[in-house]
Structures are given as structure tokens and as C-alpha cells.
């Protein structure tokens, strides 16, 4: 126990002396939260539009004005040629070419079917979907507005039917930040656990200090505890800082128990540190370790439901997330923070994480023995 204390002392001395790493360790939660939460948003912002209005009537102008008034669409240019719009789309000047056909006003007022064409740049699929969604609802709104004056009776008949009243639970305003912040906190904790602890062991090997340590009576478990504990502590500390920023800076509701969350984070950190330790046993330089850790991290994040919902992945990919600790912890974070889930609701996920600790940590320690002969 005394030996571990001395190892911890030494480790913290080195961490706090590392002028390159220290600021990053403490700035990381802030920068990640602020930048990612604000930048990674699914809300539609000012779409540049090219307008091709063949009708040039009061009604067509009213539609365009309505679209502009929402603040989502910004008429960049207009001409009488659809090809102009396509050309501008190709050079990334606009994302939408709106085409209003001839006789638009006549058809709308007479009640005969007419259409408006939305040519959308769909390179970015999710933005295209949003443009289409927003555009459709504005145009539908518009058609409802102009028609009742003419075809009131018909309108009433159309209105009858099933009316949908959506109610968004846990995140009533569909606030994207509320969805992102818990996930980003998970990424933060994972980086500390997986990168720093594993890298630290490889570093001792790379600069040769492990030689000197190996001839001391330090036992293997003491050495590993001395390497894992500092970053376990820093990881939890980072999480607390991150949660404070989330609460005070982003008004993220803490519906569930923060203590429960920290306890689970303690288990989760052991999982990622175990992975980091395992990587350190199969690499001999920090560069190799960094590369492998990054590779795993990117896979974990992309398949972990941070940006895209796991439910929309193909079946095999959904099955694979069972082995993805990041996915489980993101889920737990969102459940506890936003929905107020308690122990009963998350216990099966915590069980999976615990199982991972029980498998990975001994495996890494076993490999560490072998790799140091």
C-alpha cells in the first residue's frame, strides 16, 4: 500500500509537471463541450436558395416571402433558367434551387393540382432531409392558407380525419444540445482513460525507465495500480467539471442521481483503462499505442450512438454495439441525466460494463506479465 502511495505521488508529480499535457487535460472538457455542443447541431441554419419563378405572380411572391420569413431560407439569386440553379449547386453556392411553375397562381386559386419543385443538394444527406422537411411544411402551410378563401367546403372535408398531436418527452423542445452533451462527456472520460493511462506505460518502456523499475521490489499489481489510479481520479474529476459546465452553462437538466452516474463512471473508467493497458502491452512506442487507441476510439464513437442513433443501424451493427462500452455509457448518461433513470433501469447496462471490467482488466494484466518476460 505504501509503495502504491509513492508511485501515485511520482505519477501526479510528473503529470502536473508536464507543461504540454496539463492544460489540455483541463481545457479539454470545456473546449469539447462548448465547441461540439454548439457546432454539432441538427438545426437548419440559413439555406442559400436560387429562385426560378416562371409565374411571377402575387401568389408566387407570397410563397417566396413566406419562406424567407421563417429565417431558414435565404434567396441568394434568381433567374429564369433551372440550369443556373444546378450550376450554382455544383459550385456549392446554394443548397436549394426552388422552381415555381407557370400558371402557379391560376392553378392554386382554381384549386387544380400544381407543384413546386425543390432541387436539393443531397451530398449531405441529413441536411438534405432537413431542407426537404422544412420546405415541405412551409409549402403545405402556404397551400392551407391560400385555399380556404376559395374552396372552404372542400377544405373542411380534407381537414377531417386523423389529426396527429406530437408530444416530445424528456426533451420537449427537441433541444439538440441536451442530446449531445451527455454523449460528449462520455467521449471525454473515454479519452482520459484509454489514451493517457496506456500511453503512460508505453512511455516508461520507450524511455527505458521501466528497466530501472523492474529491478526494484515493486510488484506488478502495484505498478499497474500506480498507473491506472491517477487517470481514474483525473477521469472522474473531468466528468465532474464537465457535468458542472453542462448544468451551469447549458442548463442540462439533472433529472437522475449524479452520484449513481459517478459510480457507474468509476466502473466505465476501469473498462477503458483496461483497453488502454491492453494496447500498451502489445505496442512498444507511444506512436503505435496512440494509433491503435485512436482507431478503436473512432469505431467506438461512430458506432456508439453519439451522432447517429443506434436504432437506425443495420441489425449486425446493432448487435456489435453490445461489445462497445462507449455505447453503453452514452445510453446510461442520457437515461440518467435526461430521463431520471434509477438503478433499476440501468442495472443491466452496468452489469455489461462490470462484465467487461472482469474480462479486460485481468486479460491486460496477464498480457502485461507475458510481454515483460
Amino acid at each position, binding site marked *: 500500500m*505504501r*509503495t502504491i502511495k*509513492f*508511485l501515485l*505521488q*511520482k505519477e501526479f*508529480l*510528473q503529470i502536473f*509537471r*508536464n507543461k504540454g499535457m496539463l492544460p489540455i487535460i483541463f481545457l479539454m472538457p470545456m473546449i469539447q463541450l462548448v465547441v461540439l455542443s454548439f457546432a454539432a447541431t441538427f438545426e437548419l441554419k440559413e439555406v442559400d436558395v436560387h429562385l426560378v419563378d416562371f409565374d411571377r405572380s402575387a401568389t408566387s411572391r407570397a410563397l417566396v416571402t413566406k419562406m424567407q420569413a421563417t429565417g431558414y431560407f435565404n434567396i441568394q439569386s434568381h433567374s429564369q433558367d433551372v440550369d443556373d440553379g444546378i450550376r450554382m449547386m455544383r459550385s456549392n453556392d446554394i443548397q436549394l434551387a426552388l422552381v415555381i411553375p407557370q400558371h402557379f397562381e391560376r392553378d392554386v386559386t382554381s384549386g387544380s393540382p400544381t407543384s413546386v419543385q425543390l432541387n436539393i443538394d443531397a451530398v449531405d444527406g441529413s441536411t438534405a432531409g432537413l431542407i426537404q422537411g422544412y420546405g415541405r411544411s412551409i409549402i403545405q402551410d402556404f397551400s392551407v392558407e391560400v385555399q380556404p378563401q376559395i374552396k372552404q367546403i372542400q377544405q373542411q372535408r380534407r381537414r377531417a380525419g386523423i389529426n396527429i398531436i406530437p408530444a416530445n418527452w424528456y426533451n420537449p423542445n427537441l433541444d439538440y444540445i441536451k442530446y449531445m452533451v451527455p454523449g460528449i462527456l462520455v467521449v471525454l472520460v473515454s479519452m482520459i482513460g484509454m489514451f493517457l493511462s496506456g500511453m503512460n506505460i508505453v512511455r516508461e518502456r520507450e*524511455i*527505458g*525507465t*521501466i*528497466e*530501472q*523499475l*523492474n*529491478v*526494484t*521490489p*515493486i510488484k506488478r499489481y502495484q505498478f499497474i495500480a500506480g498507473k491506472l489510479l491517477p487517470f481514474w481520479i483525473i477521469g472522474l474529476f473531468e466528468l465532474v467539471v464537465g457535468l458542472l459546465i453542462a448544468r451551469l452553462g447549458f442548463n442540462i437538466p439533472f433529472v437522475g442521481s449524479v452520484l449513481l452516474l459517478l459510480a457507474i463512471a468509476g466502473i466505465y473508467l476501469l473498462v477503458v483503462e483496461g483497453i488502454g493497458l491492453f494496447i500498451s502491452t502489445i505496442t512498444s512506442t507511444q506512436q503505435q499505442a496512440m494509433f491503435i487507441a485512436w482507431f478503436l476510439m473512432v469505431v467506438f464513437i461512430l458506432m456508439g450512438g453519439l451522432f447517429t442513433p443506434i436504432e437506425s443501424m443495420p441489425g449486425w451493427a446493432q448487435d456489435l454495439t453490445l461489445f462497445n462500452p462507449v455505447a453503453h455509457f452514452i445510453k446510461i448518461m442520457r437515461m440518467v441525466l435526461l430521463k431520471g433513470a434509477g438503478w433499476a433501469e440501468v442495472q443491466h447496462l452496468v452489469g455489461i460494463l462490470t462484465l467487461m471490467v472482469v474480462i479486460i482488466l485481468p486479460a491486460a494484466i496477464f498480457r502485461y506479465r507475458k510481454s515483460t*518476460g
Partner: protein
Amino acid sequence: MNPISVQNLNKSYGGVEALADISVEVEPNELFGFIGPDGAGKTSLFRILTTLLKPDSGEASVLGLDVVDDYRTIRTKLGYMPGQFALYEDLSVRENMDFFASVFGTTLEANYDLVAPIYSQLERFEDRLAGALSGGMKQKLALSCALIHKPELLVLDEPTTGVDAVSRQEFWQMLQQLKSQGITIIASTPYMDEAEQCDRVALIDNGHILNIDTPEQVARNFDQPLLAIKASSIYELIKKLRSYEWADSVQPFGEYVHYTDKREEPDISKLELYLTEQCGLSEVEIKSIEPDIEDSFMNLMQKEVT
């Protein structure tokens, strides 16, 4: 019981033989040197003796303990200084000392007497980071750290490599001092001139021990008359000497070329005639010299090859 006792030790790395049938005994309170070129197997042997590496076959015991079975006890009793500087460069001199003292369950104060002669030279720099020390200072710090727990045996792997001549001299003096306090020391070095500082040396090359003896005796083992020859062009001289019919060995040694003859007694005047008249070399100078340990080592290495 000898502090180090090695019998028929073998170690190879994936088919490459690093140590072949090594046997050596180091006596109590000896300053024992392993002399050999880079890649001779010195470090492999030291890593086995310090329990960092397992031998493929053979027996090795350190302080009466088996290097494989009792590695844990051995580690508390020996001080090891690896060839590469292996202390924390981002910790200060004092922090390094305190850390290594603490993992051995002791303190700098408790063992200050032993390290004082060396550490006192470092005390001015106690707060300096180890990475900012000069080569000689680093080496003193590493030696202090290796001594902090009063080891019975000190294992120094190429302690003087990369250190200036004055510091090297100083370092061997420190080792003599430690020896006088009853510590057994083994050290390896690629520098032949350091062999004379040891009580006994083992000449090691290609994983084989060529000879174990006192430095004087090793030099005396060289039983042929030795000539030192100089000429205006060393390169031409070596070439011509090697093609001389009686030439046995021709080794460049600084500005001279050391030459041995195949005959009992070399004919110096004939040789001079050959070099000046037949080969047209100028400023030829030939003298008879006493062989030193380096000549002996070269000689043994050559015999090994042939």
C-alpha cells in the same frame, strides 16, 4: 559462496546466439569487468543476472540465490545501473532519489553515508530536473540511485559509455571507493583501457568468454614479440604488412600499427628493408613494445575467428 556464479549459460534471440555456454565466478568484494565490443553479449548477461531476462539453459546464481526462482529476493539486494539512462528526466535530482529510496522502503537520510561521496557532488543541483544534467552528472545520479538501498552487489552496464575522459577516470575512482566499503561490483565496458581498473576481467566476444584473468595476466598471455611500426601512410603500411610473407597479425593502434611475426623472433632489419626498398614507404619507424590488454584481446578475437 560467490556473489556471482554462472555455469553454462545460454541465451539466444530467435536463432541468434547472444550467450554461448558462459561460465564465470565473481568472488566477494571483487571489482570485476566484462570487456568486449558492442554486441558481444554483455548486456544480455547483465540482464539475466539482474533477473530482467530468463536464460534458455544453464545455471546462474546471484548472492547465492537462483536468478529465476528467487528473482524477487535478488532485486532487493542488488543495485543495477542500465546502459541507457533510466531515471525520470522530468523529476528533479532529489525527487528521483526519494522515489527510488521509497520503493525500496528506505530514505536518502538513512543511507546517506554510503551515497555521500557521490551524491555530495550533486547536492548543488538537487532541484534541477534530471533531464537537464550533463552526461557525467546523470551517471553519478544513476549510481546514487542504484546505491540508495545498500545493495550487496552493484551491476553496472557500460557505465562510462558516452562520458568524457575525465568523468570516466573519476567514475572508476568512485567504484574503487565503493569496493573498499565491501560491495562487490561487476561492470561492463567496451573500452580496453578501463580493464586495468578491475581486479579481474572477462574478455567476451560473440557470446563467448575468451579469457578470465587479472588485467596484468591477460596482457602477459600475449606471448609473441610485438612490434609497433609507423610510416608516412598508415593505409599503405597496413596493406604492405598484410602481404608480407612472415606477417601473423597486423592491427592499427592509433598512429602505430601493431605487428606480430610468424617466426619466434622477427627480423627487424629485413622487415625495414622490405618496407622501404621493396614497397617504397618513407619515414618508417619500427620498435619493440610490451603488449597491453588490447593486443591480447585482439589476438584472442582473431584466434576465435580462425
